């Protein structure tokens, strides 16, 4: 299997159903060789928890680390095993898989760790699947990893349970509302056919539409917040349109096309899609590449670039998906997440 020469293992933990098995596997593979081994358990606190002074996440992290330490000591029996624990992300924004990978790499460097053991269900605070992008980013920063072989008993059960009901109800509501919007909500025939069509659509497509089940409370709140976001977006579009129109109509046409890279602090499919689409929708900024939260944006004029670096749209998208507190974030420029790049370095 894996070479067992390495004795120091880094094990990122989150409260998943398989965290116990991951710890067990890490202990076994650490003790496979001879001589003393070192296990480093780390809990990465997601961006919103670390910076806002909310201590609840930190307490949870300490609690999890304490449990992991006990488990490791149980499993190690008499093996020569020392356990280190740490909480990562308290002094930096951890958002997407790349941030996690970089944070792990920095920790691995400091502590001379040579391999990472990943929990297949690793999900640190984020709502989107983490494992595959994280593996890609770990490979990119050159950190060796292997995935703990675990059994996931409850997984399939959970998918046909409450979550798929939520998906079904969400999809049914959306398609029924859309049907009646096109038809006549007071005509009985449209109501009946609407129910039939919505039922068929939601049975066949609800798993395609929602890769993550909608939340009963959060999703409607997000929809309302999105409705608040639309006027702001329209206003930004009008402003940008006028600015670009003025530049184009000037005989000298003072354009300054530049490529920029923005490390956006939104993660997951839908929030990123909203941000990248909003950026492209405003003339003057155009998303050329989107690699997780790293967006390569082509900017046409100085004003548009300043607006982009100020991150007003990013803040608005964070407000829509994460709430009001999350919207108060430093601008990409202040965070050092915005830079002008040349055409050949993307």
């Amino acid at each position, binding site marked *: 299997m894996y070479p067992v020469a390495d004795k120091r293992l880094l094990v990122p933990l989150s409260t998943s159903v398989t965290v116990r098995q991951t710890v067990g596997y890490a202990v076994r593979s650490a003790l496979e060789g001879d001589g003393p081994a070192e296990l480093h358990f780390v809990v990465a606190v997601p961006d919103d928890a670390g910076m806002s002074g909310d201590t609840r996440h930190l307490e949870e992290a300490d609690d999890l680390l304490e449990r992991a330490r006990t488990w490791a000591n149980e499993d190690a029996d008499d093996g020569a095993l020392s356990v280190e624990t740490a909480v990562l992300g308290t002094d930096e924004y951890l958002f997407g898989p790349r941030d996690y990978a970089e944070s792990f790499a920095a920790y691995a460097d400091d502590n001379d760790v040579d391999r990472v053991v990943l929990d297949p269900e690793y999900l640190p605070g984020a709502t989107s699947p983490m494992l595959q992008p994280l593996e890609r980013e770990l490979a990119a920063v050159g950190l060796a990893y292997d995935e703990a072989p675990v059994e996931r008993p409850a997984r399939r059960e959970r998918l046909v349970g409450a979550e798929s009901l939520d998906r079904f109800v969400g999809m049914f509501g959306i398609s029924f509302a859309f049907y009646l*919007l*096109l038809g*006549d909500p007071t005509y009985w025939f449209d109501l009946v056919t609407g129910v039939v069509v919505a039922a068929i659509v939601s049975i066949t497509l609800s798993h395609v539409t929602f890769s993550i089940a909608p939340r009963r409370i959060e999703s409607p709140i997000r929809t309302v917040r999105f409705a608040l976001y639309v006027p702001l977006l329209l206003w930004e*579009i*009008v402003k940008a*349109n006028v600015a*670009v*129109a003025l530049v*184009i*109509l000037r005989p000298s*046409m003072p*354009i*300054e*096309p*530049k*490529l920029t890279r923005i490390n956006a602090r939104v993660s997951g499919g839908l929030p990123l899609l909203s941000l*990248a*689409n*909003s*950026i*492209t*929708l405003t*003339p*003057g*900024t*155009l*998303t*050329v*590449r*989107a690699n997780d939260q790293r967006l*390569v944006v*082509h900017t*046409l004029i100085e004003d548009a670039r300043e607006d982009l670096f100020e991150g007003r749209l990013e803040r608005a998208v964070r407000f829509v998906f994460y709430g009001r507190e999350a919207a108060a974030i430093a601008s990409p420029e202040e965070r050092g997440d915005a830079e*002008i790049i*040349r*055409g*050949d370095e*993307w």
Partner: protein
Amino acid sequence: MIETIRFGAIVVLVAGGLFFTLVSTVGVLRLPDVYARAHTASQADTLGAGLTLAGVALALGWQSATIYTVLLLFFVFLTNPTAAHAIARSAAETGVEPLTDEEGENR
């Protein structure tokens, strides 16, 4: 009186839509490369179609066809950035170097 205001508003909206569509055309002709042109091409969709459809909605008044107009606008706003991004991305993938202004490289 109200009819006159409404008529005036419709004319202003449609004229605005036409203006931005014209600007977009001028931009596509004047701007240097595919990336810069993609910016201005989206103007025809956002404010060009946007203002015109707002004028249409106002002209139709309060009826179900107005809802279709708003929906139409919604879908234009969804598909426009997707198309613009697809064009820019495929240009980047086929190796089209963006024409960039390298003097102000001090930020």
